[in-house]
């Protein structure tokens, strides 16, 4: 365990130093399949269609797991036929397994690259905790990227059918603060797993809006696979 802890500390120090020097605008944040793949050499792909601010964005996302404590993710947005700014991240996780309960702390340094034009590079950092039992799932994610700081909370129930598939019915609360203001969204999330396939849909209602760049509710539908 010495090596992951060393990596954890080193990357956190570098990322925190880096993030304090760079600031710019920011958009959506969401982990790429937080639960899986958590095995050495595992990888996954996911695509999501996101509707927000009268704009539709398609995200193509990939994840590779070097070992349970270290992953790499890439998220590439497309909107109006054009590529947006891609986000490369390196989630570092510390798992704890106890009987019918598993949890992990995650520290995720990230960088948003100017693949959609411009020359600004934005650094990001997220601190997360998630836990799962046979019946309950929770995820807390405090993050900052560019000029945005936010928190995502997912909590809800797990319904496993015992034949390789499960439903998660969650409630999501998202709060963001950026140069353009603050907004809070909340709403239901439905997740379905079947073997190595995940389908996720979420709809979030605007609960508070004092943000000049935010307008209305949020919809996201996605499908992914891990191998």
């Amino acid at each position, binding site marked *: 365990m010495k090596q992951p802890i060393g990596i954890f500390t080193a990357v956190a120090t570098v990322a925190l130093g880096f993030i304090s020097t760079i600031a710019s605008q920011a958009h959506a944040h969401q982990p790429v399949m937080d*639960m*899986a*793949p*958590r*095995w*050495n050499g*595992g990888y996954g792909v996911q695509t999501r269609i996101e509707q927000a601010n009268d704009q539709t964005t398609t995200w193509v996302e990939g994840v590779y797991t070097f*070992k*349970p404590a270290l992953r790499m993710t890439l998220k590439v947005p497309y909107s109006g036929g054009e590529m947006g700014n891609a986000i490369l991240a390196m989630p570092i996780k510390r*798992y*704890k*397994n*106890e*009987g*019918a*309960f*598993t949890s992990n702390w995650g520290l995720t340094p990230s960088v948003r690259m100017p693949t959609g034009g411009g020359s600004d590079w934005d650094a990001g950092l997220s601190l997360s905790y998630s836990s*799962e*039992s*046979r019946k309950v799932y929770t995820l807390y994610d405090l993050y900052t990227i560019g000029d945005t700081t936010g928190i995502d909370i997912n909590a809800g129930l*797990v319904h*496993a059918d*015992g*034949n*390789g*598939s*499960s439903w998660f019915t969650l409630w999501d609360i998202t709060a963001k603060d950026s140069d353009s203001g603050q907004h809070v969204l909340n709403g239901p999330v439905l997740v379905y*797993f079947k*073997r*190595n396939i*995940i389908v996720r849909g979420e709809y979030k209602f605007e609960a508070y809006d004092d943000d000049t760049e935010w307008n209305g509710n949020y919809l996201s539908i996605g499908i992914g696979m*891990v*191998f």
Partner: protein
Amino acid sequence: MFIKTKAIALLTVLLALPAAMPAWAKNYQIDVNGIVCEFCAFGIGKKLRKLPFIDPANFEDGVKVDIENQRVFVSVKAGEAVDQEALFDAIKSGGYDPINMQEMDEVASPAEVTQ
């Protein structure tokens, strides 16, 4: 004399019987901390099935994950030695913590393994 000959023949058959019968695969139960989601544990099955001594004829290609009771069942090919260290390493590389392993009844079938 005739009876003695029959007795010897019967004894010969009985002694030869075990060699002629098909050998049973051995099944093992491994208790694993933290397995509560089959999607999350998908990699465990993937890792275990790559081990050369796993018998794909039993369970689900040789492995079954029981998230209800945090157990993994593996079937080992007849005549093959089970390598506990390899099994535990495969589970650890899948992100979970194996606790202990025990052999099940030789004739245990997948149907007897409850979810």
